[in-house]
């Protein structure tokens, strides 16, 4: 049995890492969970957002948290344009086409980044990169606590957007009954593009919280995209609370699984195995996900 203080530290680490996963998954749950658009370009879009945060800091001295509205707005514009002018037009509404188009966009984005930014891994060192807060003996990085707060705020904002605004009602209507929504005058193409844009804006925010503690290179997104899909399915398709909880579960499973793996001499990578064991268990026992409605 590990020392309780180590266990607490691992739990807190898992929780804060889970907040980072939730941040990345929140945008995806809107695009994939609500509108059922399988967006394979999610990881590549995160990579672009991380580069935006990096260059704003490295070239213009803009702190990542100050850069949040700029990056989120730019990512919204990119997402909107991509859905309106590329994904929507090229896929003709067929899921298998969407899958291939977004996969193609991901490949183009990654290779453009490789050509423009080269393959270097880039990092930033802010005044708080190494700052920690002591919580019952566990040193938790300030950047991760900020990500936790960010994940909570963005979840509430997204929930309010979907539940309380006309756009939210239009998104829900489209998700339920596309043809009916069109018949009552909803501009489906615009609403799809808005959803895509909001999903990308969430990624922009996630990048601002991630960059102080992580790095960026052209392939960085691939390390997160599978986790993001896992979180969305685990939490329940289209549920923002589910994505948040799913993120926490994945983060804590990874952390405690890694700790157990090390204690048993099996390696820290047992944490990644733990994620998928929990994922399979949830799918077997509750296929709709933790917060998903039954079909």
């Amino acid at each position, binding site marked *: 049995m*590990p*020392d309780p203080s*180590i266990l607490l*530290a*691992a739990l807190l*680490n898992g929780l804060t*890492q889970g907040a*980072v996963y939730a941040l990345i998954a929140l945008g995806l749950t809107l695009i994939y969970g609500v509108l059922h658009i399988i967006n394979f370009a999610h990881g590549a879009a995160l990579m672009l957002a991380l580069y935006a945060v990096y260059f704003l800091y490295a070239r213009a001295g803009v702190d990542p948290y100050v850069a949040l509205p700029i990056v989120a707005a730019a990512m919204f514009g990119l997402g909107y344009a991509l859905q309106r002018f590329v994904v929507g037009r090229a896929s003709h509404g067929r899921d298998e086409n969407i899958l291939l188009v977004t996969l193609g966009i991901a490949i183009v984005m990654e*290779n453009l980044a*490789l050509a423009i930014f*080269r*393959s*270097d*891994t880039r*990092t930033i*060192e802010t005044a708080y*990169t*190494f700052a*920690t807060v002591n919580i019952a003996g566990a*040193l938790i*990085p300030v950047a991760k606590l900020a990500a936790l707060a960010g994940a909570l705020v963005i979840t509430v904002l997204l929930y309010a957007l979907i539940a309380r605004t006309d756009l939210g009602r239009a998104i829900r209507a489209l998700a339920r009954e596309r043809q009916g929504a069109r018949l009552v005058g909803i501009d489906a193409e615009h609403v799809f593009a808005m959803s895509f844009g909001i999903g990308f804006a969430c990624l922009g925010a996630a990048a601002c919280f991630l960059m102080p503690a*992580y*790095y960026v*290179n*052209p*392939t960085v997104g691939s*390390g*997160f995209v599978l986790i993001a899909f896992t979180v969305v399915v685990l939490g329940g398709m289209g549920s923002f609370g589910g994505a948040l909880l799913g993120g926490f579960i994945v983060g804590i499973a*990874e*952390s405690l699984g*890694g*700790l157990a793996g*090390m204690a048993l*001499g099996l*390696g*820290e*990578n047992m*944490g*990644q195995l733990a994620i998928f064991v929990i994922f399979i268990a949830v799918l077997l026992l509750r296929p709709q996900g933790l917060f998903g409605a039954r079909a």
Partner: protein
Amino acid sequence: MTHRTARTRRTFLKQSAALSGALAAGTLGAPLIGRAQAPAIKLGVLHPVTGPLSYSGQLCRLGARIAIDEINAAGGIRSLGGAKFEPIYADTPSPQAGTSEVEKVNEQGVAAIVGAYASAICLATTQAAAKYNLPHLVDVGVADQIVERGMKNVFRFGPGYKKITEDAVKYLQSMNALAGNPAKTVMIIHEESLFGTGTANLLSQELPKVGFEVREVIKHANPTRDFANIVLRIKTVNPDIVIPANYYNEYALLVRTMRQQAVKPMAVFSVLGGAASSFKFVDEFPDVASGIIDVNHWYNPKNKDALALRKKVEAMKDQYFTYEVFLNYETVYLLADALERAKSAQRDAIIDALASSSWDRHFMPYGPTKFVNSQNTGAQPMTLQVRGKDISVVLPPAYAETAPVFPWKG
């Protein structure tokens, strides 16, 4: 010991250029028949320039390209009438891609291949090249299986991980002894692929023989997004020395997290560490990097040609002088020397010339080249320590720029 002849690379290049110029002008007696340009020597340059290893792959390509440009500008291969290299660059992000690119460059009639950086890719490319008796010069690929399969076409200029690990253990023991043996326990943190696992296994076998207790060996995935738990474990186990064997991104995250969690062992002593031999890491995180030791590929720091090349690379925009660059640079020169002596671009002749090579006009701390079973027997790693904003050779004494600081009290 260095074994350099009085004739340096610079003078060699100057003489080659002068000789080629004189030949072209027809001033050296024998008239040139028809003055036809010698046919180019096609060279396959295979590296992973896209995908997860693209940073290293692009640096490898840069090193090979600089050497090819220099040799061509200096008049090409003299014994072949000034034949120039015609590089065929290929992208090999995976072993499968490596195999298919070997097939392609073979079809295009290359005389030899230089590449392919990662051990797993080199295993595939050397095997594919063997089918065609195609000379394959391995630039980095540290897994010893690459040279242990009895392939006559394979030549590795640098050391393999067995040699590197043995030297690392020897140097760690001598550093510890010099300091009065304060360190007794180690912990190894390694990535999960062939390179990290192989290095960790060798270290786990060798370190107890020289009195170190290996407290724990931790394997991690690529990529690992968070090192907090591993650092927590280091805190719990509290080893005197932490030995990482992993790639740049994970290495950088690990030592940054150690700094964040105020974990300060007597030394971070890396074996083939991704970041500790990287000027980029030292530039970006000088405080974190300070004092870190790494046993890795390195040039002879007292050699003027090496320092001139470093200056040349550092003058390029956003480029760093890394082992990928200089190992590829030297590997191309090794091939050029073999071609000069072979007086032929036929594959058998090149293989014979490489097998009998005693090339010593390089700037690596290897002495004259001598291949036994595909491996350059003089190849050895250097022990480096980050000191201030530079990386210094601290062992072995024959090449050391300064003495190692151990334990590090930074």
